Protein backbone atom coordinates (compact mmCIF):
# COMPACT_ATOMS: atom_id res chain seq x y z
CA UNK A 1 0.00 0.00 0.00
CA UNK A 2 1.40 3.34 -1.01
CA UNK A 3 1.54 6.39 1.28
CA UNK A 4 3.27 9.75 0.97
CA UNK A 5 5.72 11.17 3.50
CA UNK A 6 6.37 14.94 3.58
CA UNK A 7 9.92 15.79 4.69
CA UNK A 8 10.65 19.12 6.43
CA UNK A 9 13.31 21.30 4.84
CA UNK A 10 15.76 20.84 7.69
CA UNK A 11 15.90 17.07 7.08
CA UNK A 12 16.15 17.05 3.31
CA UNK A 13 19.92 16.67 3.43
CA UNK A 14 19.11 13.13 4.54
CA UNK A 15 16.77 12.48 1.57
CA UNK A 16 18.96 13.83 -1.22
CA UNK A 17 16.80 16.93 -1.25
CA UNK A 18 13.46 15.16 -1.67
CA UNK A 19 10.49 16.91 -0.06
CA UNK A 20 7.98 14.11 -0.78
CA UNK A 21 8.66 10.39 -0.62
CA UNK A 22 6.24 7.75 -1.82
CA UNK A 23 6.52 4.66 0.34
CA UNK A 24 5.11 1.18 -0.31
CA UNK A 25 4.16 -0.13 3.12
CA UNK A 26 3.52 -3.84 3.75
CA UNK A 27 0.26 -4.80 5.47
CA UNK A 28 -0.73 -4.19 8.18
CA UNK A 29 0.23 -0.66 7.27
CA UNK A 30 1.15 1.45 10.27
CA UNK A 31 3.17 4.58 10.81
CA UNK A 32 5.96 2.49 12.30
CA UNK A 33 5.95 0.14 9.31
CA UNK A 34 6.20 3.11 6.94
CA UNK A 35 9.16 4.46 8.91
CA UNK A 36 10.79 1.02 8.80
CA UNK A 37 10.58 1.06 5.00
CA UNK A 38 11.99 4.60 4.89
CA UNK A 39 14.85 3.55 7.19
CA UNK A 40 16.06 0.96 4.70
CA UNK A 41 16.64 3.61 2.05
CA UNK A 42 17.40 6.61 4.25
CA UNK A 43 19.13 5.51 7.49
CA UNK A 44 20.41 9.06 7.99
CA UNK A 45 16.80 10.25 8.05
CA UNK A 46 15.62 7.50 10.35
CA UNK A 47 18.17 8.22 13.08
CA UNK A 48 16.85 11.78 13.25
CA UNK A 49 13.24 10.62 13.56
CA UNK A 50 13.65 7.64 15.90
CA UNK A 51 16.19 6.43 18.45
CA UNK A 52 17.90 3.04 18.31
CA UNK A 53 14.86 1.40 19.93
CA UNK A 54 12.68 2.79 17.12
CA UNK A 55 11.00 5.16 19.60
CA UNK A 56 9.79 8.39 18.00
CA UNK A 57 11.94 11.36 18.98
CA UNK A 58 10.09 13.48 21.48
CA UNK A 59 10.30 16.77 19.58
CA UNK A 60 9.44 15.44 16.15
CA UNK A 61 5.76 15.33 15.26
CA UNK A 62 4.20 12.91 12.78
CA UNK A 63 0.83 13.99 11.38
CA UNK A 64 -1.19 11.20 9.76
CA UNK A 65 -3.73 12.85 7.47
CA UNK A 66 -3.48 15.95 9.64
CA UNK A 67 -3.68 14.32 13.08
CA UNK A 68 -0.58 14.07 15.27
CA UNK A 69 0.15 10.38 15.79
CA UNK A 70 0.49 10.64 19.55
CA UNK A 71 -3.21 11.53 19.72
CA UNK A 72 -3.84 8.37 17.71
CA UNK A 73 -1.84 5.22 18.40
CA UNK A 74 1.72 6.48 18.03
CA UNK A 75 3.85 4.23 15.80
CA UNK A 76 0.99 1.71 15.74
CA UNK A 77 -1.33 4.23 14.08
CA UNK A 78 -2.94 2.46 11.09
CA UNK A 79 -2.46 4.07 7.70
CA UNK A 80 -5.35 4.19 5.23
CA UNK A 81 -4.46 3.79 1.54
CA UNK A 82 -3.00 7.00 0.18
CA UNK A 83 -2.31 8.41 3.62
CA UNK A 84 -0.18 11.51 3.94
CA UNK A 85 2.38 11.53 6.74
CA UNK A 86 3.71 14.99 7.45
CA UNK A 87 6.84 15.18 9.58
CA UNK A 88 7.33 18.47 11.42
CA UNK A 89 9.78 19.47 14.15
CA UNK A 90 7.83 20.59 17.19
CA UNK A 91 8.32 23.84 19.07
CA UNK A 92 11.23 23.32 21.45
CA UNK A 93 14.34 24.99 22.77
CA UNK A 94 15.25 28.52 23.71
Amino acid at each position, binding site marked *: MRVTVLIPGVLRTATNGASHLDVDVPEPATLGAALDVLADTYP*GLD*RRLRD*ERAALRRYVNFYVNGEECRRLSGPATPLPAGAEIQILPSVAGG
Partner: protein
Amino acid sequence: MTVVVAIGTRKGLWLARSEDRVTWQVDGPHHVMQEVYAVAFDTRSGLRLLTGVSSPHFGPGVSISDDLGVTWEEPAEPPIAFPVDDAALERVWQLQPAPASQPGVVWAGTQPSALFKSTDGGRSFEFVEGLWNHPHRPEWDAGFGGQAVHTIVPDPVDPDRVLVAMSTGGVYRTTDGGKSWEARNKGIKAYFFPDPWPEFGQCVHKVAQHPSEPSRFYAQNHHGVYRSDDGGDSWQSIADGLPTDFGFAMVVHPHDPQTIFTFPIEADGRRFPPEGRCRVYRSRDAGASWEALGNGLPDSFWTAVMRDAMCTDNAEVAGVYFGSRSGEVYASPDEGETWHLVAAHLPDVMSVRAAVIPT
Protein backbone atom coordinates in the same frame (compact mmCIF):
# COMPACT_ATOMS: atom_id res chain seq x y z
CA MET B 1 52.73 28.43 15.14
CA THR B 2 48.96 28.51 14.74
CA VAL B 3 46.73 27.31 17.53
CA VAL B 4 43.11 26.33 17.03
CA VAL B 5 40.55 26.28 19.84
CA ALA B 6 37.31 24.36 19.45
CA ILE B 7 34.51 25.87 21.49
CA GLY B 8 31.46 23.65 21.99
CA THR B 9 28.33 25.43 23.18
CA ARG B 10 24.68 24.63 23.70
CA LYS B 11 23.88 26.03 20.25
CA GLY B 12 26.81 25.01 18.11
CA LEU B 13 30.56 24.98 17.72
CA TRP B 14 32.94 27.88 17.11
CA LEU B 15 36.58 27.61 16.04
CA ALA B 16 39.16 30.23 17.01
CA ARG B 17 42.61 30.54 15.48
CA SER B 18 45.62 32.57 16.56
CA GLU B 19 49.29 32.93 15.67
CA ASP B 20 50.23 34.50 18.99
CA ARG B 21 47.40 33.26 21.26
CA VAL B 22 46.63 36.93 22.04
CA THR B 23 44.52 38.04 19.09
CA TRP B 24 41.99 35.56 17.74
CA GLN B 25 39.91 35.00 14.65
CA VAL B 26 36.69 33.20 15.40
CA ASP B 27 34.47 31.40 12.90
CA GLY B 28 31.15 29.71 13.42
CA PRO B 29 28.68 28.52 14.26
CA HIS B 30 29.16 24.99 13.03
CA HIS B 31 26.51 22.40 14.00
CA VAL B 32 23.95 25.18 14.31
CA MET B 33 21.50 24.74 17.20
CA GLN B 34 23.14 21.53 18.29
CA GLU B 35 24.53 21.04 21.76
CA VAL B 36 28.25 20.30 21.64
CA TYR B 37 29.14 18.75 24.98
CA ALA B 38 32.19 16.86 23.71
CA VAL B 39 35.03 18.04 21.50
CA ALA B 40 38.39 16.37 20.95
CA PHE B 41 41.40 16.93 18.75
CA ASP B 42 42.95 13.68 17.59
CA THR B 43 46.58 14.62 17.04
CA ARG B 44 47.82 11.09 16.34
CA SER B 45 47.68 11.46 12.58
CA GLY B 46 47.20 14.96 11.24
CA LEU B 47 44.57 16.88 13.16
CA ARG B 48 41.09 15.39 13.34
CA LEU B 49 38.32 17.23 15.15
CA LEU B 50 35.68 15.03 16.77
CA THR B 51 32.48 16.48 18.15
CA GLY B 52 29.71 14.96 20.19
CA VAL B 53 26.62 16.77 18.94
CA SER B 54 23.02 16.61 20.01
CA SER B 55 20.00 18.21 18.41
CA PRO B 56 17.10 18.77 20.78
CA HIS B 57 14.83 17.70 17.93
CA PHE B 58 16.77 15.09 16.03
CA GLY B 59 18.94 13.41 18.62
CA PRO B 60 22.63 12.84 19.27
CA GLY B 61 25.58 11.81 17.15
CA VAL B 62 29.28 12.16 16.45
CA SER B 63 30.53 14.43 13.70
CA ILE B 64 34.13 14.43 12.43
CA SER B 65 36.17 16.96 10.48
CA ASP B 66 39.62 16.37 9.01
CA ASP B 67 39.90 19.92 7.65
CA LEU B 68 39.11 21.96 10.77
CA GLY B 69 35.46 22.49 10.07
CA VAL B 70 35.45 23.10 6.32
CA THR B 71 33.64 19.80 5.87
CA TRP B 72 32.01 17.47 8.37
CA GLU B 73 31.41 13.76 8.18
CA GLU B 74 28.56 12.15 10.05
CA PRO B 75 27.63 8.60 9.11
CA ALA B 76 24.07 7.75 8.13
CA GLU B 77 24.04 4.90 10.61
CA PRO B 78 24.20 6.15 14.21
CA PRO B 79 27.85 5.88 15.26
CA ILE B 80 26.85 5.25 18.87
CA ALA B 81 23.78 3.15 19.64
CA PHE B 82 22.78 1.16 22.70
CA PRO B 83 22.31 -2.53 21.77
CA VAL B 84 19.99 -3.07 24.75
CA ASP B 85 16.25 -2.72 25.19
CA ASP B 86 16.26 -0.45 28.22
CA ALA B 87 18.36 2.49 27.02
CA ALA B 88 18.91 4.81 24.10
CA LEU B 89 21.68 7.32 23.57
CA GLU B 90 20.75 10.72 24.96
CA ARG B 91 24.03 12.62 24.71
CA VAL B 92 27.74 12.13 24.11
CA TRP B 93 29.64 13.71 27.00
CA GLN B 94 33.17 12.72 26.18
CA LEU B 95 35.27 11.75 23.18
CA GLN B 96 38.78 10.65 24.10
CA PRO B 97 41.38 9.49 21.60
CA ALA B 98 43.61 6.74 23.01
CA PRO B 99 47.40 7.10 23.15
CA ALA B 100 49.39 7.07 19.91
CA SER B 101 50.27 3.42 20.43
CA GLN B 102 46.59 2.57 19.76
CA PRO B 103 45.87 4.26 16.44
CA GLY B 104 42.20 4.51 15.61
CA VAL B 105 41.02 3.88 19.16
CA VAL B 106 38.63 6.55 20.46
CA TRP B 107 36.57 6.19 23.61
CA ALA B 108 33.15 7.76 24.08
CA GLY B 109 31.34 8.40 27.35
CA THR B 110 27.59 8.78 27.18
CA GLN B 111 24.35 9.65 28.90
CA PRO B 112 22.97 7.34 30.20
CA SER B 113 26.19 6.21 31.84
CA ALA B 114 27.97 3.92 29.42
CA LEU B 115 31.25 3.55 27.60
CA PHE B 116 31.80 2.91 23.91
CA LYS B 117 35.00 2.14 21.99
CA SER B 118 35.84 3.00 18.40
CA THR B 119 38.68 1.37 16.50
CA ASP B 120 38.13 3.36 13.30
CA GLY B 121 38.94 6.83 14.52
CA GLY B 122 35.43 7.67 15.75
CA ARG B 123 33.24 6.68 12.80
CA SER B 124 31.66 3.75 14.61
CA PHE B 125 31.67 2.60 18.22
CA GLU B 126 31.17 -0.65 20.09
CA PHE B 127 29.34 -0.90 23.39
CA VAL B 128 31.48 -1.80 26.41
CA GLU B 129 29.22 -4.36 28.06
CA GLY B 130 31.40 -4.88 31.10
CA LEU B 131 30.66 -1.44 32.50
CA TRP B 132 26.98 -1.54 31.56
CA ASN B 133 26.57 -4.90 33.31
CA HIS B 134 28.21 -3.68 36.51
CA PRO B 135 26.10 -4.64 39.54
CA HIS B 136 26.32 -1.05 40.82
CA ARG B 137 24.61 0.40 37.75
CA PRO B 138 21.03 0.41 39.12
CA GLU B 139 22.29 2.68 41.91
CA TRP B 140 24.04 5.24 39.70
CA ASP B 141 21.87 8.32 39.90
CA ALA B 142 21.46 11.35 37.71
CA GLY B 143 22.90 14.67 38.83
CA PHE B 144 21.41 17.93 37.65
CA GLY B 145 23.10 17.58 34.26
CA GLY B 146 21.97 14.01 33.69
CA GLN B 147 23.52 10.63 34.44
CA ALA B 148 26.63 10.25 32.32
CA VAL B 149 30.13 8.89 31.91
CA HIS B 150 31.81 12.25 31.36
CA THR B 151 35.47 11.40 31.84
CA ILE B 152 37.66 8.75 30.24
CA VAL B 153 41.37 8.44 31.02
CA PRO B 154 43.07 5.70 29.00
CA ASP B 155 46.36 4.52 30.46
CA PRO B 156 49.26 5.95 28.43
CA VAL B 157 51.03 2.56 28.25
CA ASP B 158 48.69 -0.34 28.96
CA PRO B 159 45.72 -0.54 26.56
CA ASP B 160 43.83 -2.75 29.04
CA ARG B 161 43.79 -0.06 31.74
CA VAL B 162 41.16 2.67 31.53
CA LEU B 163 39.73 4.89 34.24
CA VAL B 164 36.30 6.50 33.88
CA ALA B 165 34.33 8.90 36.03
CA MET B 166 30.60 9.37 36.10
CA SER B 167 28.08 11.57 37.85
CA THR B 168 26.89 10.12 39.96
CA GLY B 169 28.70 6.88 40.57
CA GLY B 170 32.26 8.11 40.87
CA VAL B 171 35.49 6.60 39.57
CA TYR B 172 35.69 3.13 38.04
CA ARG B 173 38.76 1.38 36.67
CA THR B 174 39.33 -1.59 34.41
CA THR B 175 42.60 -3.46 34.08
CA ASP B 176 41.35 -6.05 31.60
CA GLY B 177 40.32 -3.95 28.63
CA GLY B 178 36.83 -3.19 29.90
CA LYS B 179 35.58 -6.67 30.77
CA SER B 180 35.44 -5.93 34.50
CA TRP B 181 35.37 -2.70 36.47
CA GLU B 182 36.01 -1.78 40.07
CA ALA B 183 34.87 1.33 41.92
CA ARG B 184 37.90 3.41 42.94
CA ASN B 185 36.56 6.11 45.28
CA LYS B 186 38.38 5.44 48.57
CA GLY B 187 38.93 8.79 50.23
CA ILE B 188 36.49 10.76 48.06
CA LYS B 189 33.72 12.24 50.17
CA ALA B 190 30.07 12.08 49.16
CA TYR B 191 28.66 14.54 51.69
CA PHE B 192 25.15 14.21 50.24
CA PHE B 193 24.73 10.64 51.58
CA PRO B 194 24.03 9.60 55.17
CA ASP B 195 27.29 7.62 54.94
CA PRO B 196 29.61 10.14 53.28
CA TRP B 197 32.30 7.54 52.50
CA PRO B 198 30.53 4.97 50.30
CA GLU B 199 32.27 2.56 47.93
CA PHE B 200 30.57 4.33 45.03
CA GLY B 201 27.97 6.99 44.36
CA GLN B 202 30.35 9.95 44.45
CA CYS B 203 29.83 12.89 42.13
CA VAL B 204 33.30 13.19 40.63
CA HIS B 205 33.26 16.07 38.16
CA LYS B 206 36.57 15.57 36.35
CA VAL B 207 39.71 13.44 36.52
CA ALA B 208 43.00 14.29 34.82
CA GLN B 209 46.32 12.52 34.38
CA HIS B 210 49.70 13.28 32.89
CA PRO B 211 50.93 10.51 30.58
CA SER B 212 54.41 10.47 32.14
CA GLU B 213 52.96 9.57 35.54
CA PRO B 214 50.30 6.95 34.86
CA SER B 215 49.67 6.11 38.50
CA ARG B 216 48.84 9.69 39.49
CA PHE B 217 45.41 11.22 39.01
CA TYR B 218 43.89 14.56 39.96
CA ALA B 219 40.15 14.92 40.59
CA GLN B 220 37.75 17.80 41.00
CA ASN B 221 34.78 16.49 42.93
CA HIS B 222 31.35 17.89 43.80
CA HIS B 223 33.01 19.52 46.83
CA GLY B 224 36.50 18.12 47.19
CA VAL B 225 39.73 18.27 45.21
CA TYR B 226 41.84 15.13 45.33
CA ARG B 227 44.99 13.41 44.15
CA SER B 228 45.70 9.72 43.84
CA ASP B 229 49.29 8.48 43.74
CA ASP B 230 48.40 4.80 43.48
CA GLY B 231 46.45 4.52 40.26
CA GLY B 232 43.15 5.49 41.85
CA ASP B 233 43.26 3.00 44.71
CA SER B 234 43.08 5.83 47.24
CA TRP B 235 42.61 9.59 47.14
CA GLN B 236 43.90 12.42 49.34
CA SER B 237 42.62 15.97 49.53
CA ILE B 238 44.64 18.70 47.83
CA ALA B 239 42.06 21.40 48.48
CA ASP B 240 43.76 23.18 51.41
CA GLY B 241 45.29 25.95 49.32
CA LEU B 242 42.13 26.70 47.37
CA PRO B 243 39.46 29.26 48.30
CA THR B 244 36.79 26.58 47.90
CA ASP B 245 36.74 22.89 47.08
CA PHE B 246 33.82 23.06 44.62
CA GLY B 247 34.28 23.26 40.86
CA PHE B 248 34.01 21.26 37.70
CA ALA B 249 37.26 21.45 35.73
CA MET B 250 40.62 19.79 36.32
CA VAL B 251 43.44 20.11 33.80
CA VAL B 252 47.07 18.91 33.83
CA HIS B 253 49.86 20.85 32.17
CA PRO B 254 50.87 19.10 28.91
CA HIS B 255 54.57 18.86 29.82
CA ASP B 256 54.79 19.12 33.61
CA PRO B 257 52.93 16.44 35.59
CA GLN B 258 53.15 18.52 38.78
CA THR B 259 51.28 21.49 37.33
CA ILE B 260 47.48 21.52 37.36
CA PHE B 261 44.75 24.07 36.78
CA THR B 262 41.24 24.37 38.15
CA PHE B 263 38.48 26.95 38.30
CA PRO B 264 37.07 27.11 41.84
CA ILE B 265 33.38 27.80 42.31
CA GLU B 266 32.14 28.95 45.68
CA ALA B 267 29.76 26.12 46.58
CA ASP B 268 27.12 23.73 45.35
CA GLY B 269 24.49 26.18 46.53
CA ARG B 270 26.33 29.23 45.16
CA ARG B 271 27.73 28.46 41.76
CA PHE B 272 29.83 31.54 41.14
CA PRO B 273 33.56 32.15 41.51
CA PRO B 274 34.39 33.34 45.05
CA GLU B 275 33.36 37.03 45.34
CA GLY B 276 32.42 36.91 41.66
CA ARG B 277 36.06 37.18 40.64
CA CYS B 278 37.10 35.23 37.58
CA ARG B 279 40.22 33.33 38.64
CA VAL B 280 42.03 30.24 37.47
CA TYR B 281 44.00 28.46 40.19
CA ARG B 282 47.30 26.79 39.39
CA SER B 283 49.41 24.45 41.43
CA ARG B 284 53.04 23.82 40.49
CA ASP B 285 53.51 21.13 43.13
CA ALA B 286 50.76 18.59 42.48
CA GLY B 287 48.25 20.35 44.67
CA ALA B 288 50.36 21.09 47.77
CA SER B 289 49.98 24.83 47.15
CA TRP B 290 47.90 26.96 44.82
CA GLU B 291 48.05 30.44 43.33
CA ALA B 292 45.28 32.55 41.83
CA LEU B 293 45.77 33.68 38.24
CA GLY B 294 43.75 36.70 37.20
CA ASN B 295 45.88 39.02 35.09
CA GLY B 296 43.45 39.98 32.35
CA LEU B 297 40.42 38.28 33.88
CA PRO B 298 37.34 40.21 35.09
CA ASP B 299 36.47 40.93 38.70
CA SER B 300 32.73 40.70 38.17
CA PHE B 301 32.02 37.31 36.69
CA TRP B 302 28.76 35.81 37.92
CA THR B 303 28.95 32.61 35.94
CA ALA B 304 30.75 29.26 36.02
CA VAL B 305 33.13 27.07 34.04
CA MET B 306 31.89 23.58 33.22
CA ARG B 307 33.83 20.32 33.51
CA ASP B 308 35.05 20.14 29.91
CA ALA B 309 35.27 23.88 29.31
CA MET B 310 38.92 24.16 30.37
CA CYS B 311 41.99 22.77 28.64
CA THR B 312 45.57 23.36 27.56
CA ASP B 313 47.09 23.19 24.12
CA ASN B 314 50.16 21.12 23.26
CA ALA B 315 52.57 23.99 22.52
CA GLU B 316 56.05 24.10 24.06
CA VAL B 317 54.98 26.98 26.29
CA ALA B 318 51.54 25.76 27.18
CA GLY B 319 48.44 27.78 26.45
CA VAL B 320 45.52 27.50 28.85
CA TYR B 321 41.89 28.06 27.86
CA PHE B 322 38.49 28.18 29.45
CA GLY B 323 34.94 29.12 28.52
CA SER B 324 32.00 30.09 30.68
CA ARG B 325 28.28 29.55 30.90
CA SER B 326 27.99 33.21 29.93
CA GLY B 327 29.69 32.62 26.58
CA GLU B 328 33.12 34.12 27.18
CA VAL B 329 36.29 32.27 26.25
CA TYR B 330 39.70 33.28 27.60
CA ALA B 331 43.18 32.19 26.57
CA SER B 332 46.51 32.41 28.30
CA PRO B 333 49.59 32.13 26.03
CA ASP B 334 51.93 31.76 29.02
CA GLU B 335 50.65 28.98 31.27
CA GLY B 336 48.19 31.19 33.09
CA GLU B 337 50.27 34.32 33.76
CA THR B 338 48.22 36.59 31.47
CA TRP B 339 44.80 36.17 29.90
CA HIS B 340 43.14 37.46 26.74
CA LEU B 341 39.58 37.31 25.53
CA VAL B 342 39.07 34.91 22.63
CA ALA B 343 35.33 35.37 22.18
CA ALA B 344 32.35 36.81 24.02
CA HIS B 345 28.56 36.61 23.83
CA LEU B 346 28.54 33.01 22.65
CA PRO B 347 25.93 30.56 23.94
CA ASP B 348 26.77 28.60 27.12
CA VAL B 349 30.20 27.07 26.65
CA MET B 350 30.22 23.34 27.45
CA SER B 351 33.50 22.14 25.99
CA VAL B 352 36.84 23.67 24.99
CA ARG B 353 39.84 21.93 23.42
CA ALA B 354 42.96 23.39 21.80
CA ALA B 355 45.80 22.18 19.61
CA VAL B 356 48.70 23.44 17.58
CA ILE B 357 47.95 23.03 13.88
CA PRO B 358 50.67 20.80 12.35
CA THR B 359 52.71 22.46 9.61
